[in-house]
Each structure stands twice: as C-alpha cells, then as structure tokens.
C-alpha cells in the first residue's frame, strides 16, 4: 500500500513556482530521506503532504485521502520542525501530557526515558530552551507520538554532534521496534545515509531522483583522464559534474551504465575510474551549475 502518492503536483506562491510537476509514491513503513539544497522546495512538499498547504494543481493522496484540512490525516501524522509552537504557560511535562491526549499510540514511557537520557528538565518551559534543546524536545514528541506517518523537517537544527548521533540511533531503534513511514528532510545526505532506505532528491522544485540508497551508491562513476579524451568520450552524455584537474586533465561524473558502455567501446585509454560517494552525488545532482562554485571563478 502506498502511504503517499502525488500526481503532477505543482505549488506556486504568487509568481514563484516552489514545486513543479512532481510525481511519486512512498510505500508503507519505509524511511525516506528528502534531500535537496536550500530553497529546493523540501518544506513546501512536506507541508502539502501534512495538509497544512494546498496544492496549486495536481493530486496528493495520503492514506488514500486528500490531506488538506483532513482530520484523519492529521490524527495519523505528525510534523516535526523547528517552528513548532507550544503554549508558553505549559511546562515540558505538561506538553507531553497534552500530546499524549491527542495521539492514540503515544508511548509515554519512551518519552520519559528519552527525557531523562537527554537530561531535559520537566519543569522547564519550551520557549526558554536553547535551539538544540528545542530540537531535542520536538524529536522526542515526534518519536513518542508513534504516528503511522512521521515527518521530520530538518530535525537536527542546532543539535550538537553527539545529540545528532543519538537522535539518528534512537530513530532507527524505534523504527525497528514499531515500523512506520518516516520522512526526514535534510540538505546533507552524509549524516543520515546509514538509516535511510530510500532517497528522494529535490532541487529547484523538481524531482531529480527517487531510489533505494543502495542503488544510489551504484548509480554513477567518475572518470579522470586527459581532457580531449574525456571530452570525446562523453560527448552527448549527461554529465553530472565536471572539473578540471591540473593543466590538461578532466574529472567527470556520469551514469555507471553509460560509462560501462563507453569504456567497452573506447577501451581504458589511460582513463581512471572511481566510485562516487552517495552524498557527493547528491550534491552534484542538485547543484545549480555543473561546474560547481569553481565555475564562478573560472573566468579565463
């Protein structure tokens, strides 16, 4: 069963096109990473799935229903981000008690144990917490709610490295105990790569790639060699990334299957072949310009 399905989803804010013609499905009980640079449309997409924003055109289905203004979707979904607001007159433990009333599957023991582990003070107020502590508290709410669809939008904002590591571990352990559909958005893949099953690449409001993480690692290779050889070989190919190495050498990233065909035809010819790390590939696939930031400075 698909938990989320989108057909030709487009979202515009005035003249700005935040999401452009996106079609995808997300299956039940998968952990998907939504990866893309700033301004790619990650938050917009997640908020449409959560039913906070309305799609401008196209069809969105969550649990087979239109999520916008839908109570059933709201009851089975939790959306965690760093903009979460709680009443300023409630202490953290009172907020936990309120959350428990709203969510049927709420696990108070888990919440308390995480609370103790991260040494949060139950009598503290949410608006007085530091940025990282807020994120930690929000994460606890997200995990303990045990919603069939759990959405984390850039959940680790402000967390220090240790807490981030603990968070990913907690998420994975809890997921293994209680499988559910989880989406985590991030602008970087490297930290969350290990816990993800699927990856969804978004850039400029368009879907770039949706694939299991294991496939992503096999998706592309890098070739390095003399520039004229590389240029001749890769003419007409889709090049994800290209940079010059030294005076007359070139480094390009292309699809693995394309590369294999080319190499079979042309022979190795002094070319070196490297694997491409998944997080590097994500950056290449979503970056604005093929040459990267170097292209700005390569004027001559």
């Amino acid at each position, binding site marked *: 069963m698909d938990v989320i399905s989108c057909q030709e989803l487009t979202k515009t804010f005035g003249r700005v096109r935040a999401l452009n013609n996106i079609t995808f499905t997300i299956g039940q*009980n998968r952990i998907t990473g939504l990866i893309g640079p700033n301004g790619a449309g990650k938050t917009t997409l997640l*908020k449409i799935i*959560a*039913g*906070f*924003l*309305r799609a401008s055109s196209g069809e969105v289905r969550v*649990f087979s229903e239109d999520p916008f*203004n*839908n*109570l*059933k979707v*709201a*009851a*089975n979904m939790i*959306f965690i981000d760093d*903009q*979460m*607001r*709680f*009443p*300023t*007159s*409630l202490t953290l433990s*009172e907020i936990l008690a*309120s*959350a428990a*009333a*709203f*969510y*049927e*599957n709420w696990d108070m023991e888990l919440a308390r144990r995480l609370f103790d582990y991260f040494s949060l003070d139950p009598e503290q107020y949410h608006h007085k917490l530091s940025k990282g502590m807020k994120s930690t508290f929000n994460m606890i709410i997200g995990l303990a709610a*045990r*919603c*069939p669809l759990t959405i984390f939008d850039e959940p680790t904002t402000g967390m220090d490295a240790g807490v981030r590591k603990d968070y990913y571990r907690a998420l994975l352990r809890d997921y293994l*105990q*209680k*499988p*559910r559909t989880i989406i985590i958005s991030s602008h970087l893949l490297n930290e969350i790569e290990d816990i993800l099953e699927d990856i969804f690449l978004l850039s400029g409001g368009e879907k770039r790639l949706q694939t299991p993480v294991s496939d992503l690692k096999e998706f592309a290779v890098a070739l390095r060699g003399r520039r004229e050889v590389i240029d001749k070989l890769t003419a007409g190919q889709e090049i994800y990334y290209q940079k010059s190495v030294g005076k007359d050498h070139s480094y390009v990233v292309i699809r693995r299957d394309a590369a294999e065909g080319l190499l079979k035809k042309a022979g190795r010819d002094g070319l070196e072949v490297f694997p491409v790390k998944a997080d590097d590939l994500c950056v290449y696939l979503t970056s604005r310009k093929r040459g990267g930031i170097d292209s700005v400075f390569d004027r001559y």
Partner: protein
Amino acid sequence: MSLTDISLTEPSLFDTVKKQFLYKLKGRLGLFLAMMGVQIMGLLFSLSGASSHGMGDNFLYVSVNEFSSDLIIWFTFFWIFVVAVLITTKDYQNIDFTFVANRLSSHLSNVGFLITAAVIGGVTAMLSGTLLRIVIYFIRGRYMLSENFITAPEVVLTGIAVTILYLLLISALGYFCGVLVQLSKVFIVILPALYIGTVDFLARELPVIVKVYNFIIGENSLALLAVKVLITTALIYACSCVLANRLEVR
C-alpha cells in the same frame, strides 16, 4: 502487514474539538490573568467616581458623588475583543496545528474557548461591581448611602446574563475581524476605516445600520435579547468558519 504495524486511527470531530478545547484552556491561562489585570485597573479608575457634582448656598453645600462599575464592564468588553482577535493570529494557529487539528476543529474549539471567556468575564465583571461598593464603603464609607447598597439577586443575575450576551457578541465580532485580517492584511486598514465610517457617515446615509444596531442592542426583554444575540453570534461564527476553512497554516 506485520503484527507490530501501527494501525490507522479514525478520529471523531467532537473528540478532537474536546481535546483541543481542554488544551487551549490550559495553555491560555495567561489571557485570564490579563482579564483580572484589566478589571482591577477598571476598579481603580472607578474609585474616583463616575461623576460628581455639588450645589448649595452660603449655609449648606451638597456634593453628590456617583460611583459605577460600568468602566469595569467596558474594560472587560475591550479585553474579550482583543483576545478574540489574538487567537486568530498565526502564533496561536501554529499552536493548534502542532497536534491533531483541522480548520473546523480549530475554530470550534476557539468558539468554545471564547464562550467560556465570555461567561467568566461576565460573572467577574458584574461581581466586581459589588467589590467596588465594598471598597468604596471602606475608603469613603461616611458618604455611602445605605439604601440600595445590597443589590437584589435577580438584578445581579440579569446584569450577569446581559453582560455575558454582550461579551459573546463582541467576541464573535472580534474573531470575525481577526479571520478577515488572516485572509488579507488589507483588512487591517479597511476595518478601522469601516468602523469609523459606519459610526459617522454610513449611519447617516444608511438608516438600515442604525436599525440593525437598535434591533439587537436596543432590546428591552432579556429573553428576546438572548435569542437575538445568540443567533447573531452563531451567524458571525459560521461566517468566520466558512471564510477561514481554506486558509493555509503553519
């Protein structure tokens, strides 16, 4: 599906509204503290007397000081209007949609909250009139006329009922204004202009506005006033819900 799968819940609107209402009562206690502050301020202002005048000749001088708790009630009206507008703002909306909610449940629990606020505001505002008498008795006791010092219970109860009705109407209007501003910031300019226009220009040009006003506010029978105010309030809330039902949140 494996055994450990989390099953989907089927929420009922009534249940959700109830949970949100309780959550809001707990989370918005500060607004009631503000009400107490506003009423105490009204009480202090009332201590100087609503009006005073004197008359006499060379031998005798009579000075009359009138005290009234009207000011406390006006302050309470102002308080509930501000509260009604405030809870439509993005900040309060955000808090709603942190946990389970849709637009309708959010509005209905807000209406429940404002009704509660009107009842608490109405009762405390009327009773603070009694408090005012007691305070004046102790401060300026020698001038106090003992006649009418104790108000008949039915008068107090009627006063409470009428105050609550007005508070309901004002809160509905405030909520409606807040919703309009959420729909478009243009209303921040239009609404005050419209208000001044209605009072001054429109009331002269369009007698129907005066008629509507008199029809609702100028009612002398409590039962009829209640019916008129409750129907008007319900209509205004219904308009707010319909208008804001397509708003995007968070």
